[in-house]
Structures are given as C-alpha cells and as structure tokens.
C-alpha cells in the first residue's frame, strides 16, 4: 500500500482514500458511511463501498457481535473495489476498535470516540487495559475525540434531551471526517433537512453535531492538515451513486418498459434480497405489481401464474429461498414460460451468514432441480452493472420463453458506486410478440392453435395469453408432445423433448455477447477467469500485476449458462488458468468438465469479498510457480 497519509502541513492531495466507519449497531454507521459516500460522489470522486452489519436487528450494545462497519474507497481515478485495507478507521467504541483494527493498514489513522472508552465498554469488548493508553496502538496515528461530550454540548441549547442528543454523535464524526478530507458539507446538510423535515428537533441536533464536527477539525489543533481527493476523470455524463439492489430493481423496471410487458414480482422477504421488493413496491406508477407472498414457493408460483397471464413474472430471494423454489422453476422449464428468478447470494449453507456475501449458489442455479432441467444463468458483476444484467436476464427470458436465473450477491447488493446514467433511448428493444391466432392446420383443414409449435429461430413456443380468443389451450408439467402439447409418455418423445429443452438453452449461446477479455490478451502467461462480483478485485489485481510487468489476461463471464461460444478458445489459449471464486471452486469445476483444461480454483469463502491484494499475491504465486 502506497497511500498512507504523510504528516505535512496544509492540504495534502491523495489519489485515493479508504475510510472505514465502525461502531455499535445502534450508532448509525451505515448511515454515516452512506452520507460520506454520497458527498464524495456528488463531489465527483470514483468510489466503491462495502457495508458490513450483524445478522441481529440490534445485537447487544457494546459487544463485538454488535459492531457494524462501512468501508468506502474514494478515488480520483477509476477504481473497482472498496479498497484492500482502510487508511482511516473511525471507531465509535472499544468493540469497534478491537474488531476492526485488523483491517487497518499498518501506520494508518485511527479516530476514536474517546467518550466511549470507559471501563464497562472496554470489558464488554474484551480489553484488559485501555488501548488508547497502553501503547498497543503505537504503530498507528491515533486521534482521541470526545465526540459524545461535544455533541451533547452543542445540542443542549436546542432543547434536545441529552439521551437523544447522544444519538447525533455519528453526525459529529461525519462532520469531522468531512472537514479532514475536504468533503463538501452542503449535500449532507441538505440531506439532513430533507430527511428529518417532520422531526425538526432531530434535524437541528444532527445539523449541529455535523457542524460541530467540522468546527472541531478546524479548531482543535489536533490535525496539522487536511487531505483532498480530487474528482475522478470519468467519462462525461450524468452520474448517480447506486447500489446493486437499486440498480437491479431499476433494470427490471427498464426491461418491463422496453418489452411493454407489465412487471409482476412475487417475493418473500429475505436478506439481502428484500430491498428489491421494497424498491419495486414503490414503482406502482410503472404498472409494477408486487405480492409479498406467504412463502418462497408461493412467490415463484404467483410470478409464474402472472407470466402465464402475459406479465413478466419475477421472483427475488437468496439461497434458502431458491432451495424452496426448485420444483416450481422445474415446472417453468416444462411450461416454457418467461420467468426471472433472482438470487442475491449470501453466506451458506443453511441459514449461514445472512448478512454476509458469498457466491456459492452457482451449482444450485445450474443443477438445483430434478431431471434434466436446464435454465439460462446470468450473473451481475458490479453494483451499477446489475441494471444491465437485469435487462439481459429479462431479454433472454422473454425472447426464449424460459425461466432465467440472475445471480447477484450481498456485496453487489449493498455495495455502491457512481454510475454513468445510460441514455434511456439506447436501451435494447425487448418488444414481445404475443400469439394472436391459430398456428397450425389439421389434416382436415381446421385451423388450430398448438401451444408447443416453435419459432424456428429461437425455438421459443408462442406466448398465448388467456383472454385471447381462439387460443385456448392447456399446459402442464407432465411430459408432452412437441407441437400439440398433448400429454405424451412415449420413450422416443421424452428423449426428443429432453434434448430439445437442452438445445433450446444451449442455442442461446448464439445470441449473447462474447466473453469480456482484457489485459495481455495476446501473450498472457496466465488467464484469470472470473464471474460475478469478483470482477472489481480481479480487475485491480490484474492491473497491479501488469504494472509489475507480468503478462496476465482477465476474462469475465456474465453468461454462465449457456457459456459464451468463444470461452473454450479463450481458456485453452493461455498456459495457466486461475479461477477466483467466493465458493470452493464451482465455476472452475464447470470449466474443467466443459473444456478439459486444468483450471485452478482460488477459493475464499469467508463472508467478505476478495481484496485486490489477495488476488494480486495469488497471481504472482501462480506465475512464480
């Protein structure tokens, strides 16, 4: 790491800055991080965030288990990760310091709320002595700030009760950090007055605390200088700061608009997918219908029922929910109706780590159904790209009349980054043609409708929606005859249909973009092959390795089933193939089986994303082998 903060006078310019806010669950650290991020975004920095919080609503105050943290990297250039090790750790209590210190870079800056370092809290955090005094932090730059005291002080005259005033201390911290890193104050002040417009006292307290934080920086003479991260030189255009779940939700709305097919979401709340339900529930003026169903099975069934009715049926969940939806996804495979199944992956198995990230549901997406039951799979790779991934998944579902699984994960879902807003008029046209009349002539000349007569190009069957005269038909999950759709148990027919369903999906490979390939495409000694949210860390790591003169290429797969047609050539082209995954090597196994190349897995299954540094060292390790 090169960007430790050197102690000079005046304003110091930084290329990038990684701040980690940590405190008790009740301390509002997610909000503080969010606000710091937003202000930086509006200022024009590139950035990437990593929120981390406990599974409990409010874990016991002051304990290690109760610590909530938010990390953000702010940069004057294009970045792809929230940073390896924070440069600055803001610790609101002893537990936060103790739990989060491991992340801080050697020599980094620590800013603590000194008021919280009392006996009781130290004990709860498991400290035998006060780390602020016992020399254990000598390798860091430590600032002790009585945040609670000052906040209470400045709130006194506002008529806020001391207990309530204390709650504003996170805004004090935010003010101090905003001063220290020259973040614009106005966005935060505006946000406070908008957010708390019906709770004037709280608005006043937060404003006062924030300003006190800034003033403290100016006046306390603790700090000899401030820092600045210049706006990033990004592609011109309008930007907004977006997290993956919001981008994904908007992508779904966009797909519905572009297809002129109404959107129906059947969902059951589950972390980290619930926010998509929340977001889409607010989009009723787009004709979006949402149903909070009684369980995940009902949710996907309702979505499938809506698809039968000519809507774009969608269901959102995470792993445990997918486990329950398998039977219905299989029905959708047999019915050949569009259906979007969205898995925001989290740590497993079982309940696992509900609030932590992992990407270990790929094999479940591939194979989590009985029988031969192929389903196209699309994976998002960055928070903002979730928007396009959603559109692409919907495109495939609508065009090919098939359930599609879209994979995201907790890191993408909650992580945010600046997003160059696309020109809406450039989004793909997904217009769907519904069946309107008979499509088959019987031997006796009668015109009839055959529900399983296929489009010769897409092999999609007609979407004949109830309400359409002349097209009444029955569909079901029992094996059927191609064309007529009549129940058929004959051996030959089943063999034919099983292969047809397999080929229907395989054939989509003709209609997906080529593999994203970057780096030393022509002469790399190593291919790093990724999918999903590892994109940011791989991109950074490959960049670092190449800066060191290594020859490395990076292929990133967005379509996991079917695989892009060029992928075989790509993986065979390079002497070594490394597959970093937040699982025990699931995609790696697919690659090995499919292409018989000795791809090697790099597994990290710890509930937190890869850092670029980790991957960088893996790359070097393999190349030095």
């Amino acid at each position, binding site marked *: 790491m090169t960007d430790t903060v050197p102690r000079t006078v005046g304003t110091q310019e930084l290329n990038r800055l990684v701040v980690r806010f940590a405190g008790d669950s009740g301390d509002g650290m997610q909000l503080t991080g969010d606000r710091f991020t937003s202000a930086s975004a509006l200022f024009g920095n590139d950035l990437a965030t990593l929120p981390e919080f406990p599974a409990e609503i409010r874990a016991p105050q002051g304990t290690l288990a109760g610590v909530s943290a938010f990390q953000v990297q702010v940069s004057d250039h294009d970045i792809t990760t929230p940073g390896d090790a924070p440069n600055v750790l803001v610790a609101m209590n002893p537990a936060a310091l103790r739990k989060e210190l491991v992340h801080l870079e050697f020599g980094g800056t620590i800013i603590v709320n000194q008021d919280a370092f009392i006996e009781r809290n130290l004990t709860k955090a498991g400290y035998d002595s006060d780390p602020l005094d016992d020399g254990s932090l000598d390798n860091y730059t430590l600032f002790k700030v009585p945040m609670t005291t000052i906040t209470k002080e400045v709130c006194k005259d506002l008529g806020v009760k001391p207990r309530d005033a204390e709650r504003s201390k996170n805004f004090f911290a935010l003010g101090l950090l905003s001063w220290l890193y020259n973040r614009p104050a106005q966005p935060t002040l505006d946000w406070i007055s908008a957010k708390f417009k019906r709770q004037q006292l709280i608005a006043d307290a937060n404003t006062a605390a924030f300003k006190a934080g800034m003033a403290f920086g100016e006046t306390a003479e603790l700090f000899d200088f401030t820092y600045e991260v210049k706006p990033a030189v990004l592609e011109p255009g*309008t930007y*907004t700061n977006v997290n993956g779940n919001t981008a994904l939700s908007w992508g779904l709305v966009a797909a519905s608009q572009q297809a002129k097919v109404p959107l*129906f979401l059947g969902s059951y709340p589950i972390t980290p997918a619930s926010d998509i339900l929340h977001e889409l529930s607010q989009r009723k*003026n787009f004709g979006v*219908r949402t149903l909070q169903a009684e369980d995940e099975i009902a949710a996907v069934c309702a979505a499938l029922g809506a698809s039968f009715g000519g809507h774009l049926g969608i269901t959102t969940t995470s792993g445990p929910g997918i486990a329950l939806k398998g039977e219905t996804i299989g029905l959708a495979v047999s019915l050949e109706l569009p259906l979007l199944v969205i898995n925001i992956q989290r740590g497993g198995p079982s309940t696992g780590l509900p609030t932590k990230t992992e990407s270990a549901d790929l094999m479940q997406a591939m194979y989590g159904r009985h029988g031969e039951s192929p389903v196209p799979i699309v994976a998002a790779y960055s928070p903002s790209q979730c928007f396009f991934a959603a559109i692409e998944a919907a495109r495939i579902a609508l065009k090919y009349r098939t359930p599609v699984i879209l994979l995201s994960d907790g890191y993408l879902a909650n992580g945010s980054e600046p997003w160059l807003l696309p020109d809406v008029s450039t989004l793909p046209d997904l217009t769907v043609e519904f069946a309107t009349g008979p499509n088959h002539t019987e031997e006796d000349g009668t015109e009839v409708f055959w529900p399983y007569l296929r489009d010769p190009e897409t092999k999609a069957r007609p979407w004949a929606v109830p309400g359409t005269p002349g097209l009444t038909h029955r*569909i079901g999950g*029992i094996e059927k005859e191609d064309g007529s759709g009549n129940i058929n148990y004959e051996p030959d027919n089943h063999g034919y249909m099983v292969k047809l369903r397999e080929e229907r999906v395989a054939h989509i490979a003709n209609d997906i973009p080529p593999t994203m390939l970057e780096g030393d495409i022509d002469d790399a000694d190593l291919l790093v092959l990724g999918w999903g949210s590892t994109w940011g860390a791989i991109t950074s790591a490959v960049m670092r390795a190449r800066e060191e003169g290594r020859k490395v290429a990076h292929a990133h797969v967005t379509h996991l089933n079917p695989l892009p047609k060029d992928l075989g050539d790509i993986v065979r082209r390079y002497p070594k193939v490394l597959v970093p995954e937040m699982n025990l090597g699931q995609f790696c196994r697919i690659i090995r089986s499919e292409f018989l190349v000795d791809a090697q897995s790099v597994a990290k299954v710890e509930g937190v994303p890869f850092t670029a540094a980790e991957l960088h060292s893996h790359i070097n390790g393999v190349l030095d082998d």
Partner: protein
Amino acid sequence: MTDVPTTTKADWTSDQEVRWCPGCGDYSILTAVQMLMPDLDVRREDTVFISGIGCAARFPYYMNTYGMHGIHGRAPALATGLAMARPELHVWVVGGDGDMLSIGGNHLLHSLRRNVNLNILLFNNQIYGLTKGQYSPTSEIGKVTKSTPAGSIDEPFNPISVALGAEASFVARTHDMDRQHMMDMFRRAHDFPGAAFVEVFQNCNVFNDGAFGAITKKDKRASMLIPLEHGKPIRFGENNEKGVVINPQGSAEVVDVADVGESALLVHDETRQDPSLAFALSRLSAGPFEPTPIGVYRAVERSEYATEASKQLAMAQEQSGPGDLEALLHSRPTWEVS
C-alpha cells in the same frame, strides 16, 4: 357482457380423452361444470382452470378453456399470480383434499384471507387417489390404508371449518351425486367477487368407495343432508321434521321441530359479518355419517385482492403520473462529469 356468444356444453369440452377410473365421482363434477358454463355469460377465452396434481387436478385438461396443470399443492398460488395480473379473467382452481389441504394447505388459507377472486373447488374424496390410496387430511380416524395398516391416528380437518378459520368470505359445500346442487353452488362461486371456496364430496370408487354414501345416496339425502338456504329456517328430514337451533353455548344443534316449534329454528344468514354462525354450522356433523349441512355457509362481500392491488396502481399513476424511466434513473442525487 352482451357480446358473449351462445355456447353449449360441447363448446366447453376439450378434445382430450378423460382419464379417470370408470365410475369416479370426478365425472359428474366435470359434467356439472361443463353444463353450467354456457349459462354463465362468460367467454371461453376469459376462463382459466388451474390445478395442482392428483386425480382431481386433471380437471383443466378436460375444459376447453385456458388451463394449467401445475404442481402438487401450488394451484392457489399459481392462480393468485394470474388473478392479480389479469383481474378481468375468471379463474377456477381445482384440487383434491391432499393437494389443497395437505401439501397446499397454506396457499389455500392465504388465498382465502386475501380474498383473491378465485373459484376454488376442493374435490374431497377423503383419500389420495392418484398415488393409489393413502389416507388424506380428511380421512376419518382409524382409516386403514396402505400407509396406515394399523389405522390412521390423525384427527381429520373439516374443510369448511378450516376455510372459515382462515377468514374465507365465501364458503359452500356440495356433493357429486346432485348435479343441480353442484351447478347452483358453482354458479354462486362464480358470481361471488372474491375467493369462493366450495367443498365437493366426491366418491373415489377405487380407493374409498362409498365414503359419502351414508349421506349422499338418493334415499339418505332427505334425512342426512341439511340444506342451507339464506333467509330460511334450517330444516330437513324425510318430512322436514328436523331443524337446527343455536344453543346458549353457541353450538348448532339438531332438534325435532315438534319439540321446539318452528319459530325457534335458526334462520340461515349467509351474510353475517361474523363467521361464528357459519362455523357453528360446520361443526354440526363430525363426518359424512351424521346429518350434514350443504349449501352456502357464508357469503360476505369484502374488498377483493386484485381489485385493491389495481387500485393502488391507478392511484400511484394518478399521483405521480405514468412511470418515466428517465426520471426514475435521475430520482436520486446526480452530478455531472464533463
């Protein structure tokens, strides 16, 4: 609705061969439905039958309408999505006692409390037909089946009580031996704007033959079936000599009219907001061997789910205008890079 073409039973009959065992009660239910349809003033293409899995669940294949043969237990959930997406359709749900009270019990309950505009027909044969004769959640205690060689030990559900406990707004019961009664009940279900639940006693002549014989055989009906008619005192018996009263402890009781006098009889009121009356009636009989009420237990209108959902959409559009994607993308703080 004036332009609905005139149809006959044949128009509503699909070209698929019916594959139930000869003599199965499902045939007469199918006939009742197919005969009713031309009378309902609905178009074939606006009518959808959705089912789960089981003998009963084969039903959609035989109706010349839109149809979906789903998976075991999930028909109410599939139908809820369809009904929400397309509130103008007439959606029927058909399933067996296993399908809708065992694996699918929860979906049934939730569709009832939500009051989704579905016509739900539960073919209760007190057995698992399609899987060849295991006991079901409506089988009587002590039932000897393949899976209970020593007799079942599970208290059966009373489907009417279950539905009423789940806030069902329309609840009725009929049986496969009386086509006219079935048609009346199905018509009432169709006419009801909300979730209409109809239990149909159905004979499975292969695995549970005669389960309802003691009350549905022609010569038993007068004494064993208690017809519920709105606004009328509840009476039955060969000579209408029996009646029903509510006792001071809230239980429905069968009495001799001669003993209590006609004026003491309970006057059936299907429209009572409080389902307690309907519930008490559902407890009159412990099974198809005692006098059992048939007809409409409850028919109380309340807001329908899909309609309410649509209203919220309309309201949102009124308030915020139709969705504008461009505006949505710009709805949070933005900044310009040039």
